[in-house]
């Protein structure tokens, strides 16, 4: 097997390969490091962190669905100070890039986390704008183009690392949203976050999730994710991190052919703790099978 060049460049940061973890499914890698050599990953994307600790939603927070799952963790996190104390030093032991996913309830929340991270040794920021904007009556930041542009622009003022904006798929026109992020100064786009869904326990006659609704992830949503990556790749110049149901190297290649530079593995970790490495090896196999020399040669060819 000849050596394929798997390196990718995301907003000026070079990753040894395109495979990363999807935020919230991998913690900061501490638990999965017992199953996976983190040195082999292109990047670890950490669980969303806010300026102060969040308790998240009540349990149950998970419901299984056909080919997928719903979660309603509600962005439980220990707050940025605890995160900086514990998680960054842990990850810095490894030769992998660190992408910190950021949650917030107001523009100021986001800015304060990003400002706090400016002096930290991390590689990229990923802004999760699927959060409710408390000042705008709880409407999701990521669903209104003007809010997307505004929050991106404000956060950029404080950002020392390149800023990836992570989009929610629960919108009429993903291209319009991606363009708003680009106009706000985003250095890259991640997509997709989860689709809003609900499962009812018909025997108990109540929703399975304490929070009633939750985010749908897993292979069930992959066709929606591939479509959105393809649309956004055609409409903006920004590098894209694609995710949504990636279980195998072939799934990852689908996203890359649709135009993604990086790929993130989320729900698949729960089904197979070694999923990230299986995806990586599957990508290598595909490229070898077709005698490709570098991963860039199959990117965005659709």
């Amino acid at each position, binding site marked *: 097997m000849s050596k394929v060049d798997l390196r990718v460049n995301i907003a000026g940061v070079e990753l040894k390969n395109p495979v990363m973890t999807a935020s*919230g*499914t*991998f*913690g900061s890698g*501490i*638990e*999965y490091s*017992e*199953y*996976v*050599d983190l040195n082999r990953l292109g990047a670890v994307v950490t*669980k969303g962190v806010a300026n102060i600790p969040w*308790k*998240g939603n*009540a*349990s*149950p*927070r*998970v*419901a*299984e669905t*056909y*080919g*997928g*799952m719903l*979660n309603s*963790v509600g962005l*439980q996190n220990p707050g940025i100070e605890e995160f900086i104390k514990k998680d960054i030093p842990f990850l810095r032991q490894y030769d992998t890039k660190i992408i910190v996913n950021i949650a917030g309830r107001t523009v100021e929340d986001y800015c304060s986390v990003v400002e706090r991270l400016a002096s930290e040794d991390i590689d990229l920021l990923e802004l999760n704008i699927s959060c409710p904007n408390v000042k705008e009556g709880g409407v999701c930041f990521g669903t209104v183009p003007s809010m997307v542009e505004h929050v991106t622009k404000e956060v950029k003022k404080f950002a020392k690392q390149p800023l990836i904006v992570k989009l929610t798929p629960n919108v009429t026109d993903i291209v319009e949203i991606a363009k708003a992020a680009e106009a706000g100064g985003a250095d890259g786009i991640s997509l997709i976050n989860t689709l809003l869904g609900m499962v009812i326990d018909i025997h108990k006659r109540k929703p*399975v999730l304490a929070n009633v609704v939750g985010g749908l992830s*897993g*292979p069930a949503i992959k066709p929606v994710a591939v479509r959105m990556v393809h649309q956004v790749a055609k409409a903006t110049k920004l590098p894209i991190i694609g995710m949504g149901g990636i279980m195998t190297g072939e799934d990852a290649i689908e996203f890359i052919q649709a135009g993604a530079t990086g790929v993130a593995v989320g*729900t698949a*970790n*729960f*089904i*197979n*703790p*070694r999923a990230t490495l299986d995806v990586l090896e599957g990508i290598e196999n595909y490229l070898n099978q077709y005698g490709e020399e570098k991963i860039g040669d199959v990117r965005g060819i659709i």
Partner: protein
Amino acid sequence: MKKKHIVEILLNEEIAPNNYRMVLSAKEIVEEVVAGQFVNVYCNKGELLLPRPISICEVNRESGELTLVYAVVGKGTKVISEMKVGEDLQIIGPLGRGFMILEDEEDEEENQENPVYLEHLIIAGGIGVPPMVELVKNLKGNVTVLLGFRCNPILEDIFKKYGATVHVATEDGSVGLKGNVMDLINQLKPKADMVYSCGPKPMLKAVAQWSKKENIATQISLEERMACGIGACLVCTCKIQKEEETDWENRRVCKDGPVFWRDEVIWDE
């Protein structure tokens, strides 16, 4: 590196209506097991993605056998119940923090003449019963076991085999006392140094109230819906009292539990 294990099914038999005993050949797993830990069982069916957490009922370190006892309650356990002897099962584990056994070997060494064993009381209901088997095997003092079931008791004999005194209650009165474990407690008025409990939430809550009143240290094994099973995804949390504070925090049943001290647990609803 830890990994997903592919283990052979040695036995998968119905021991009571809808209740199955499964024995696995799992040498690599049994070594480190602590009573009260669990494994995550993958269903290997495309539409059912998440693994099913099942407590370790018993291990045999010599033969490498691992026993699970489970009830068929939904799609996943149905699929598992239909698997055949000789087939492979995918599991990860052992997972979680099991029961603390306070009579450790140092105690024994220090008090060789007159080792102090505790008086143990196990209170379990329904599908909370299985993990207590491995526990009983590892306890040195006197063990009393109170078991509650809706109708068909399971594993009664095995507790006796390992020397425990067993009392059973069934809701339909078909075996033992007609009622639940709280009725057993009211009848027997048991004394103990340590209570271990696992079962449905209302039962656990009642046991906790009683043991608090009686002032007996108590370990409680909780259940919650899970995804990763190893502490990374935060979907399986329960409310736990913060130390030295009035505030609470969400802790992971899969990693920080499933066994918690009674006084840590906050009972909502």
